């Protein structure tokens, strides 16, 4: 049986002769009908460019060459624009990442789905409308007649993505390319969308699934190809590649995944940093660690437009123990960040209190809190926006060390100490955070948080924006720092695998409430609450 997709030695170069970027450097693979191949790699690996070249959409300024580039027997390379347009949508469909921006926000989704029908068929408008309804039912969209008149912004994340899928399968294409189709979705919704894609595959559509997440693709893909720097370094059946990886890069990628890894186990191969010269606050005491921060029945309401009220946090209580990590896990909108902000004293609760080392902390006038702020540090998902855009790394850290006044020799020495403890070379001092990589920025953020020798660090999605291998390094760093300095962490994430690996105790949040909490191993291995059970079941695993 001839392959639906046949790629031999694909090369894609961007840019003119003076400045070229080799995005894809000799990629070859085949895809049969009804088969799912996953292209897995980190950012810059060339996986998206490879897939889009199959539609002639590699991007502006791209030079595409290959020995063979065939979809359903047709040669893509030789095609002119008109021919390419005729196969797009008809023989190949594309599903992009975030339907909020991948569907025209100003047009009703019914129109977006109708487009393919309008462009490639000669059906009458009423016939097209019937087909659109059929498609919406095929993707399990509830109330399709009402939904087709709504815009992507009016639908929830999962429904939007279904609409996007409907627009891609409108003409029953032989090949469906899904480029990170679930990255923007909550984990339970992600599972549903992956199941939907699986059903399409079973019905005969070939699926090219692109992701940075090995665990996500493991359930749906028949074969996996791992890309690094524009080349395929390993390819094979899913079970084989994930169970017995041959190439060191694949092995490192799999080793970096935190799900199922024990507390304290190293995820990355990063060499041990210069041992930290930061002084420990005090030695870890006995088996019952001191409770540093206690939140009791914290509640917060927000006023929305038209007088509606949102109960963001509903009577949340938790405790942060010295030297231990409390993981706070929940999907988007569960209230985790609002809890963090209340613990940091950035938001005042409407009810409930928080205490720090036994003394009142929130609600309290800021001036009575200010001198204790050194006890708390914070790192965020988007650390770049937490730095003053005018500052260099040196200025950021000096500012944190001196409390705002000018730096002196002692301050400079301390900055050096901080950089060493997070494994950053001195060369980053003069650079701006904007020009650092994501992992480096997080390290600077950690260094800043450590500047005042805190006892607690609040981490709000600190690794969610990082590539898997970089994520592993940062998680290892946080673990090391905790054992060296006896830090207490509140670790917030939507990623169950990360939380499980990092936490001693876990609290699960949903719609502002904590539905379950306890030791991490117990909560994840044998969850009590139905919601936790659903989360754990939906979490992708290898």
């Amino acid at each position, binding site marked *: 049986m001839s392959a639906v997709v046949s790629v031999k030695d694909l090369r894609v170069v961007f840019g003119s002769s003076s400045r070229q970027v080799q995005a894809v450097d000799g990629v070859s693979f085949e895809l049969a009908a009804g088969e799912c191949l996953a292209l897995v790699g980190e950012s810059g690996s060339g996986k998206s460019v490879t897939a889009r070249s199959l539609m002639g*959409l590699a991007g502006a300024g791209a030079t595409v060459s290959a020995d063979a580039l065939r979809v359903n027997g047709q040669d893509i390379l030789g095609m002119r624009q008109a021919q390419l*347009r005729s196969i797009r949508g008809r023989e*190949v469909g594309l599903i992009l990442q975030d339907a909020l921006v991948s569907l*025209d926000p*100003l047009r009703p989704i019914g129109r977006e789905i109708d487009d393919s029908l309008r*462009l490639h068929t000669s059906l009458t408008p009423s016939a097209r409308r019937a087909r659109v309804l059929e498609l919406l039912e095929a993707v399990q969209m509830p109330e399709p007649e009402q939904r087709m008149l709504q815009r992507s*912004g009016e639908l929830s994340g999962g429904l939007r993505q279904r609409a996007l899928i409907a*627009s*891609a399968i409108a003409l029953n294409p032989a090949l469906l390319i899904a480029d990170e189709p679930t990255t923007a979705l909550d984990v339970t919704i992600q599972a549903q969308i992956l199941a939907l894609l699986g059903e399409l595959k079973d019905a005969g559509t070939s699926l090219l699934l692109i992701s940075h997440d090995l665990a996500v693709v493991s359930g749906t893909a028949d074969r996996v190809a791992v890309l690094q720097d524009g080349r395929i370094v390993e390819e094979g059946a899913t079970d084989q590649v994930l169970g017995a990886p041959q190439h060191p890069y694949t092995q490192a990628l799999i080793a970096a995944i935190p799900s199922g890894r024990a507390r304290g186990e190293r995820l990355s191969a990063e060499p041990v940093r210069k041992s930290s010269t930061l002084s420990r606050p005090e030695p870890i005491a006995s088996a019952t660690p001191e409770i540093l921060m206690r939140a009791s029945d914290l509640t917060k309401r927000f006023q929305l437009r038209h007088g509606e009220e949102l109960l963001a946090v509903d009577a949340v209580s938790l405790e942060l123990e010295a030297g231990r990590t409390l993981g706070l896990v929940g999907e988007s909108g569960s209230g985790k960040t609002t809890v963090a902000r209340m613990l940091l004293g950035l938001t005042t609760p409407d009810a409930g209190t928080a205490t720090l080392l036994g003394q009142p902390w929130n609600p309290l006038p800021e001036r009575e809190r200010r001198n204790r702020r050194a006890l708390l540090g914070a790192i965020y998902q988007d650390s770049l926006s937490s730095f003053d855009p005018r500052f260099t790394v040196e200025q950021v850290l000096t500012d944190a060390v001196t409390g705002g006044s000018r730096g002196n020799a002692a301050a400079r020495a301390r900055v050096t100490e901080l950089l060493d403890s997070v494994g950053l070379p001195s060369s980053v001092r003069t650079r701006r955070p904007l020009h650092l990589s994501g992992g480096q920025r997080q390290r600077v953020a950690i260094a800043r948080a450590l500047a005042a020798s805190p006892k607690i660090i609040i981490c709000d999605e600190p690794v969610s924006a990082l590539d898997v291998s970089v994520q592993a390094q940062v998680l290892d760093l946080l673990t090391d720092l905790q054992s060296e300095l006896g830090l207490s962490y509140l670790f917030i994430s939507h990623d169950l695998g990360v939380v499980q690996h990092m936490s001693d105790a876990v609290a699960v949040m949903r719609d502002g409430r904590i539905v379950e909490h306890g030791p991490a191993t117990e909560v994840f291995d044998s969850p009590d609450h139905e919601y936790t059970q659903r989360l754990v079941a939906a979490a992708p695993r290898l």
Partner: protein
Amino acid sequence: MVRWIVSRALGAAFVLWAVATLIFFGLRLIPGDPAEAILGGPGSQASDEALQKVRLDYGLDQPLLVQYVQAMFRLLRGDLGTSYALKADVAALLGELFWSTLTLTVLSLVVAWAFALVLATWATRGGRLGRMVGSGMEIVAAAVPHFWLASLFILLFSTALRWLPPISTPGPLGLVLPVLTLAIPLAGFLGQVMRESLADALESPFVLSARARGESETGVRWRHAIRHAALPAISLSGWAFGSLISGAVVVETVFARPGLGRSLLNAVTIRDVPMVTGVALVSALAFVLVTIATDAVDRIADPRLRAR
């Protein structure tokens, strides 16, 4: 939607009241005796009786606050007073002037939009030349004064080519040069704004999705990108109308076209307080109404705004 219109209308009423108050007290600061000004200025050597009569007629002998309240009530009735210089009812004078200026400005806005759309789509077509034209457009638009552009047009079309009259004659032909003078600089600016948002839209994920469905370049532009590109220009149209009113002062003067702008200039030069007040209020009213209208269009065009 209705609630929104009502709240905007109330806001507009407040603004107009504030403008009227500002102008009333501001113009009272003009040095000299208003009664004298009415009778023809300091050189008129009016008799004391004449002055006293004028004061009674115009209520100038009352305390300032009383005058203010009386003026506000008259405004509500639509009475804008009598022009010092022209000795005629201001409201009546303004009626025709208003339509003349309105025609000029609205037509200029429409023409500017048309030019801007053409410029924006053209500038996003060709790579480097397009970008240079794009940024050049806006700089030229900002730097060319209306009065110079008008003079150049007169030189070209009236003196050299003799196609069009140098002075605005009633009828469509007399509108051509004034409208072009106002529209072209505005088109340069709106075109730049549209070009930028068009370029942004063309790189967005939903356009990629459209292309992936087999949509042609033309289809991508006109079915998807243009609407996004037009949004910021719609938002700006309220401000644009204001700048057209401002430009009308110069353009009406250069082309000797009757209108609010030219009348304001004359009134300011001879300090005809009722005229100045009347023209300023009517202009403010027109501007505020147009701003509400463009905001309404904005909300219709971009449903995302309705959720705010």
